[in-house]
């Protein structure tokens, strides 16, 4: 699956790694919803590191659809919350 890290580019991650990534991703969501800024920072860093470690970067001129998108490494909790709540587009 192809993951985009905003501000960095795209990374191709083998499907087998998604169990591990999902765990971090769910954790990140929980921290964001509870407003745990410190935890959010730590988990986001860990998730981005894991994606970079497990995946291989795509060339900049590749035009592949990203199935998943991650905030930029320096994105704050508020920024991410704003992105997700914008226009009421959050499904479910």
């Amino acid at each position, binding site marked *: 699956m192809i993951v985009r890290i905003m501000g960095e580019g795209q990374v191709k991650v083998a499907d087998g790694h998604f169990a591990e990534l999902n765990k971090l991703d769910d954790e990140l969501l929980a921290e964001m919803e509870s407003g745990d800024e410190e935890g959010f920072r730590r988990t986001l860093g860990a998730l981005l590191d894991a994606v970079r470690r497990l995946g291989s970067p795509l060339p900049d001129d590749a035009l592949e659809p990203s199935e998943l*998108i991650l*905030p930029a490494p320096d994105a704050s909790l508020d920024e991410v919350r704003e992105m*997700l709540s914008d226009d009421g*587009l959050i*499904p479910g």
Partner: protein
Amino acid sequence: MSGVMKRMGMIFRAKANKALDRAEDPRETLDYSYQKQLELLQKVRRGVADVATSRKRLELQLNQLQGQSAKLEDQGRKALALGREDLAREALSRRASLQQQVSDLEVQHQTLQGEEEKLTLAAQRLQAKVDAFRTKKETIKATYTAAQAQTRIAESFSGISEEMSDVGLAIQRAEDKTAQLQARAGAIDELLASGALDDQSGLGSKDDIQAELDRLSGGTDVELELQRMKAELAGGPSAQQQAIEGGAQGSAQQSPQTQHRFDKQ
């Protein structure tokens, strides 16, 4: 999977689609650009027609003047034969001024002809470019439509529109714009390079001194013509031909020495 990654992906794509929907259709932009190029081509063609018309008008004028000139020469000859040198002088001096107009018109005629050729060439080149653009435009439009259809199919089957194919469309739009600008710039370059756009200035305008010189040499011409006709009446055929040619062509080159020689006769 309902974490941040998935949600961000969905929101990103939804926004990209919205942004695209708001923007104008690149196919319309292409058609508009093509329309503009056709108009430009039309203008160039009209320019060719205008120049050709002016050229023909000049040709008519030239014919008329030459006819008058021949008539005046004839009258001069008759007057001289009747012993009316004053009348002959008058006819010949009128003829000299006509000849001046004729040579002026001939210069203009040549300039117009050159311009017409350049414009015709420019129009042909522009036509080729417009044709090429039309082909490319249709290709780009077809590609765009296909990409759009693909996006819609992907959406309806998986419920996920493709973030990057949207980016791809954005690139496509940029390419369209580039092609449009290139075609325009190319067309204008073509016209400038061929000189069709800035050739209008300096159509045979003369300064005062040149006009005065022309007038003087015109007078000289009359004297020469008189001498020639006198010689003709007297019946000296061999020297005449040369004198006729000298009088008909560049009067400025006619050297004063020749005149002296005639005077001494």
